[in-house]
């Protein structure tokens, strides 16, 4: 049976860590898309250089969670709180990697000019950034309504991504010479869409935390 005071303190620490990881992801995504819009190489390099912070935070979550399981032997919702913290931290770590992948696209385009100003990519990134914030908020408040909303927003992102693929495909037919850049922009759209999927996973984890049943929001 957990020692309540110590257990609650450590749970609070887990929440702080996951909040920090969420903030880091949202910031990295914003910066990565900005670096791409402006082809700002320095900004892209900074994002890549900061990624270790996210990995360290994830390790800290693993460390605290494992220690709680070993020393306090939690059950029921207490156990789910820890299982979910592991799962969310691993989603956030992947989201950080995907933001980093966008920054790498900026690096690969460093001697080019953009074929046209980016419109869909920043718009998708805005929505996904918001989804990430809401997924973390839904975790902090154990709010399943907000968790389900993240799943609904993800459908919108998926839809935008499909439109973007079609548009880029059509563009490439007329401008074969821009093929490499079109491929990279397509990949960027894919990275953002994947970040949205991970935010949706976090929503699923929150529903599992509250109800004990894992729903499929990622359809």
């Amino acid at each position, binding site marked *: 049976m957990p020692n*309540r005071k110590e257990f609650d303190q450590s749970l609070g620490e887990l929440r702080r860590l996951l909040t920090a990881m969420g903030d880091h992801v949202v910031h990295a995504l914003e910066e990565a898309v900005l670096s791409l819009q402006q082809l700002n190489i320095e900004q892209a390099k900074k994002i890549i250089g900061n990624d270790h912070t996210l990995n360290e935070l994830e390790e800290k979550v693993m460390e605290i969670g494992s220690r709680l399981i070993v020393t306090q032997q939690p059950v029921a919702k207490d156990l789910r709180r820890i299982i979910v913290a592991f799962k969310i931290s691993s989603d956030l770590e992947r989201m950080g990697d995907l933001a980093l992948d966008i920054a790498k696209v900026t690096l690969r385009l460093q001697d080019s000019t953009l074929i046209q100003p980016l419109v869909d990519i920043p718009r998708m990134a805005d929505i996904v950034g918001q989804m990430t914030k809401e997924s973390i908020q839904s975790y902090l408040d154990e709010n399943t309504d907000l968790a389900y909303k993240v799943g609904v927003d993800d459908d919108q992102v998926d839809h935008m991504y499909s439109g973007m693929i079609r548009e880029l495909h059509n563009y490439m037919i007329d401008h074969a010479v821009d093929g490499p850049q079109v491929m990279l922009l397509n990949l960027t759209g894919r990275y953002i869409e994947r970040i949205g999927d991970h935010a949706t996973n976090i929503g699923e984890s929150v529903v599992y935390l509250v109800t*004990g049943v894992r729903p499929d929001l990622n359809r």
Partner: protein
Amino acid sequence: MSAIIRVEQLNLYYEKHQALKHINLNIKEKAITAFIGPSGCGKSTLLRTLNRMNDMIPGTRIEGVVEISGSNIYGENVEVENLRQQVGMVFQQPNPFPKSIYENVAYGPRLHGVKSKKELDEIVETSLRQSALWEEVKDYLKRSALSLSGGQQQRLCIARALAGQPDILLMDEATSALDPISTLKIEELTRELKKDYTIVMVTHNMHQAARISDQTAFFLNGEVVESSDTPEMFSNPTDSRTEDYISGRFG
């Protein structure tokens, strides 16, 4: 699995104090059922009603039904001696008789009229094998039971209960006075025994209930708050009071 024990609308009073309130509970045959809950919640009291150990406490009054294998054990023609043979019990403190290991196990059957040496030998060996003690004591059956370690004594008490060929074994915190290794042995033994017996245990060790029982009933203030499959109880209890108790929020 069908219910071997059926408790219906059971109320129990010690003088004016109501210790059990409207208990309804089915206990499955050949399974381990654990009773958990804070001190004074009624779990040991209910356990003791299952072989009428409460009869010995003056001022006890019982209403309701306790059926074992379809007959009311509080009915008129019940022989309590026979009942206690059918429903064996193991207590918190190992309590072997100050006699030899052999005599501890043979005592009950002899009392019930088994005279043949060969038959008694067989009962002693079978019971000691079933309680996982045989290999450790087979060469020392004449030694005093009190020379055994606490864990061995407890397994001897289990053998003594099994010698009566019960259907049901009640365990009242049977490992709480034992070291972790002896506890583990008894737990393994309990899992082995459920193939042939129905086991009902009271435990203060919540994780023991989670580890070995199939069904768990959570008691609070003389009531059964919740009773369900053990994995369900410890992963997703339906009553918030159960969640609070197993998460250490009170008790």
